[in-house]
């Protein structure tokens, strides 16, 4: 049987190694599952086995670029799997455009990736500007209605994009932005900025950053006695590791997710979403989150495209990806013209008795959000 090679770089060491591993696990699981099912029956009449090449880019843009170049030039890879993190995905997508090979990614959400006129990049995550919107909507629907908000933004591309979207949505709801601060990624101390949020008496706090800062926020909100009705971060508040590090301080915090393990979308490889969750559990002994789901979705996007072309040519596969529309454990996968997907986030909250539960939108919530958050002195 012939082989199709899917290749890419991923954060297997460094700051994002935890999350990079989730993608690699999902890629491997899905490729293995496809091969066990007999391979891909491509539209050109042949059946192909899938092969995976993943190299460590250490979340470094320069490494990633040269890995993709090497994969294309040396290893003859025609179909690229995107890296993790917008910082790396943005330059990697430029390589895809230069070399005219399609790249499907589940790890880069900055809208900048999709606004460059790049016809070769496709992303499964909602764009960064959407990340905090659902949390804002949810807060706005509660009572007492929030009137003011504090926004803390890490100065990386993903977080600043998320912040832009958040500002617009706050404005639409008529919520006044009383604190709007950007902090350098290397900062580990948010006391001063949190103090400002407290002094401005903001009703809600949104932080656009990553997991490390989410933990700090959780801890320093207590030491600085920052009491708000709702606090959430764009990334990192929903992982088990976060709860471990933050402990009880993580209770009542919110976070967005593009996927829920309890959903039941039909999937051609795993049966449905629950089937996928089970497969991940069986293979790797952990509960999957949206990173896993997106990773598997990347492979499934290619499989679907291969099935719909009459020739395995990069340009034709690219077009098949763009025109494709199918249901998977991730949800319905279909791309906009600019390569992004148009999905909204769900919101989850850590509730002391029940753990991490889906609280928004109301149509699919598992529990009501506990709003407002109890003050620190009352816990």
């Amino acid at each position: 049987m012939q082989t199709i090679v899917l290749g890419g770089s991923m954060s297997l060491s460094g700051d994002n190694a935890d999350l990079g591993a989730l993608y690699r696990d999902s890629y491997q699981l899905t490729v293995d599952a496809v091969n066990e099912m007999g391979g891909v029956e491509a539209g050109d009449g042949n059946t192909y086995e899938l092969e995976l090449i993943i190299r460590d880019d250490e979340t470094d843009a320069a490494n990633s670029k040269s890995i993709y170049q090497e994969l294309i030039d040396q290893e003859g890879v025609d179909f690229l799997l995107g890296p993790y993190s917008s910082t790396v995905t943005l330059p990697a997508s430029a390589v895809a455009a230069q070399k005219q090979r399609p790249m499907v990614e589940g790890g880069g959400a900055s809208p900048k990736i999709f606004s460059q006129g790049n016809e070769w990049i496709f992303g499964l995550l909602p764009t960064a500007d959407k990340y905090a919107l659902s949390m804002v909507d949810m807060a706005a629907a509660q009572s007492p209605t929030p009137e003011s908000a504090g926004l803390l933004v890490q100065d990386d591309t993903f977080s600043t994009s998320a912040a832009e979207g958040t500002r617009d949505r706050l404005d639409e709801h008529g919520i006044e932005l009383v604190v709007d601060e950007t902090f350098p990624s290397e900062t580990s101390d948010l006391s001063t900025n949190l103090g400002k949020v407290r002094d401005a008496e903001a009703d809600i706090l949104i932080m656009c950053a990553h997991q490390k800062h989410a933990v700090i926020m959780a801890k320093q909100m207590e030491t600085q006695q920052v009491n708000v009705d709702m606090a959430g971060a764009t990334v990192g508040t929903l992982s088990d590791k976060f709860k471990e590090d933050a402990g009880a301080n993580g209770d009542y915090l919110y976070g967005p997710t593009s996927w829920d393990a309890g959903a039941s979308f039909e999937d051609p490889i795993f049966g449905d979403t629950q089937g996928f969750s089970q497969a991940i559990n069986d293979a790797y002994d952990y509960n999957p989150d949206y990173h896993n789901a997106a990773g598997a979705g990347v492979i499934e996007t290619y499989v679907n495209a291969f099935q719909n072309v009459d020739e395995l040519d990069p340009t034709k596969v690219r077009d098949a990806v763009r025109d494709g529309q199918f249901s998977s454990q991730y949800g319905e996968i279909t791309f906009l013209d600019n390569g992004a997907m148009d999905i909204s986030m769900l919101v989850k909250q850590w509730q002391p008795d029940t753990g991490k539960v889906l609280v928004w939108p109301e149509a699919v919530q598992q529990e009501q959000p506990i709003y407002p958050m109890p003050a620190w002195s009352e816990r």
Partner: protein
Amino acid sequence: MTRYAAGVLEFADAHGWKIIAVLAVVGALPPLFGLEGGFYMTVATLTLMFGVLALSWDLIGGQTGYPSFGQMGFFGLGAYTTAILVKDQAVAFPVAFLVAGVLATLAAGVVGLIVLRLRGGYFAIATLGILLVAQQVSRNLEVTGGSSGKILLDVPPATTFYYVLLGLLVAEVAVVYYLTGTRFGYVLNAIRDDEGKATSMGVNTTYYKTAAWMLAALFTGLAGGSWSLFNTFVDPNTAYNLSWNVEMIAMALLGGTGTVAGPVLGAFGLHLTIVFIQSVSLDVTLPLLGPTTINFAGWQLVLLGLVVIVTVVSYPQGFVGELRERASAMEYYRHAGGAAGQETSHDETASPDGGERT
């Protein structure tokens, strides 16, 4: 070995310009004979670029004795200039390229007023400070794209940059080679060896220092200006990259500071070694882990660190410096090492002690 070393140096001294010309022609050939865009092209182009950087650093560091830890500041300035002009102002690359060089030189002039008054370690730290401030500023400004930097999709083909950087390297080698044979180069070395004495002899050291500093910045800025488009991406972390600053110093040291060929050889050698190590991928079966692929991807920095340590500790004169030492050891032996009064083996072609310019 010493005889060989002396021979090489003599040949190089006598035929310097011809060697440069030949190397320039040889360097121009690869793209014509199959080296197309892609991985190897990137490696070749970056190797040329590091050659330019190491030599620029050496001009102010090795020749003049002012070791700059902020040379990358000019690189970044050049990189952002071309990126912003080409992307946001639709300026043609050649024009943007020249502007980058001019800006870098001017910036050097201004910064030089402040930092060239300091010496040695203090100068190094001050230049480090400049680099860090430049990095922070470009992270916080809109025009530079903040921490996301700028991405450029519509750029000239990779071969263009290969030739630009080749041309830059040849030009710089020619300029430095020429200068080291003139009074200008001599004064720079005098400043390095004993600035106090030079000043007391009436030399306007400020003028010479600043000229060298600005010349180094010019080439660095031009290198940066081509790099940003070649890379299709520029961000504060890579454009103002402290690691690269250390790398260029290590390259100059490895090859031999204060020489013309040294930094270039050091750049080629070190960069190619690093690339090689990075790309080595062995499929082995380890006892406990079973079949695994060992990839050295993460270890090139360790290698760099070790290279720096070993070079500084054991070989501070670098490769060309070692050559020179051995060569002059040979000279000594041939002309005076024999017991007084004995005839030394004559060698009419031995050059008298001049022209140590390699």
